[in-house]
């Protein structure tokens, strides 16, 4: 059963470091699980916790946040805000019954394609081990894995375009 489960993970990358790390991984022909759908933000500090909650509420099994290493932020110190929000959000999510492993924060510089691949793979395997999140819709829990994926696919195209643009 667990082997059949392909988690849907929404990944947020920053324009200056982690998106370029993913780019580097691609250019270097490194492979990582296709379960992570990347959305590029200008900065990890742009990551409103709303994005994470919306991803979970609409069927994501995990959310991957990545940005420049602390001290290396293109906008000087915005990724410190990311750290603070991430820690607070994880506490809230735990109270809501969402395992903290479903939210991961990873730093990756533009040169760290291999590191990005390694962390993305770890994330996918960790969420695969946890199983589907199956968040509810319209006040009722959703039980169908296909329904979950379909929902993400529906809201997917615009973000996919953004990533490849």
């Amino acid at each position, binding site marked *: 059963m667990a082997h059949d489960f392909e988690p849907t993970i929404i990944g947020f990358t920053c324009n200056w470091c982690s998106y370029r790390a993913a780019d580097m991984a691609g250019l270097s022909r490194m492979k990582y699980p296709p379960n992570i759908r990347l959305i590029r933000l200008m900065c990890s500090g742009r990551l409103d*916790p709303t994005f994470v909650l919306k991803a979970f509420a609409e069927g994501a099994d995990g959310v991957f946040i990545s940005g420049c290493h602390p001290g290396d932020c293109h906008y000087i110190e915005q990724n410190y805000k990311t750290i603070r929000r991430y820690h*607070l959000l994880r506490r809230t999510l735990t109270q809501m019954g969402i395992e903290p492993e479903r939210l991961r924060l990873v730093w990756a510089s533009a040169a760290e394609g291999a590191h990005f691949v390694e962390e993305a793979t770890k994330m996918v395997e960790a969420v695969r081990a946890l199983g589907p999140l199956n968040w509810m819709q319209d*006040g009722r829990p959703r039980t169908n894995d296909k329904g979950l994926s379909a929902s993400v696919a529906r809201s997917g195209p615009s973000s996919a375009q953004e990533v490849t643009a």
Partner: protein
Amino acid sequence: MTDKPKFAMYWAASCGGCEIAVLNIHEKILDVDANFDVVFWPVAMDAKYKDVEAMPDGYITMTLFNGGIRNDENEHIAKLLRRKSKILVAFGSCANEGCIPGLANLSKPQEIFDTAYATVSTDNPNGIRPQPKWSAPEGELHIPKFYPVLRTLDQVVPVDYHMPGCPPESHQIAAVVDLVVKALHGEATLPPAGAVIGAGDSTVCDECPRTRNVKTIKQFTRIQDFKPDPKLCLLEQGIVCNGPATRSGCGALCPQVGAQCIGCYGPAEGVVDYGARLMTAVASVIDSTDPKEIDKILNGIPDPAGQFYRFNLAKSLLRASKAAIQG
């Protein structure tokens, strides 16, 4: 019965404070009486559900509906009143965003019943629990079916207007009564459907007279633990104040008397998820770049879900905890 416009007010899962707030509009209540026939208002007058069922659709001009949808009776009456009302107003925090009853969405129904019927403060020696069905000599009796999670009114039926507040402030209710009365006489137009009425379109901070500077927080604290400066922003002093995400309209009553805003007027204009907006605001003022220290500072907020979703859980993006939705 005269041919005046018809008025109804109903309570679902709520405390009754909204009804008190309506009566608390002082002499304006006479305007309600002068301009409306009250056809259904369980708190104030005797009426039966079958009386409402017998009304033609759209018979009631305006219904103020307060309370969340916790059981099938609440849902039945919400749908009934939607059908019978021209204007349905989600009145007060419970109907709009779940409010305190919505916090039960953190717990399984079983845990809720355990707390209500089996804790030390409950005198229930025989362990009696409510039964949905009961056979009595007179026939089978039913009580409303309890739902796994509480829903807001607009998660169950379409709502025309939202009036926030726990409860809505009396001057705001009076202003809305004035507006509706004027509209009935053709002297004013009602706002577009779906609008928030009886509230401002900014945040509580905007109405708060306290002085605000750049915020850098090393420690979160609570008002019982120290004496806050009466003129300075409470969040700046380490008290988690919900003002930055909360809709204006109350006049910042709580911060003016030294208590932090707890967020009863719900999300400010444009806020998708109330708790997320607050988490963004509160986390970003923490004065540390070290993850360990940040974590330690965050220990000063022992119940983040309760803090950031005190009134808004049922209307949040997640709506309930995993335990609650899985029963």
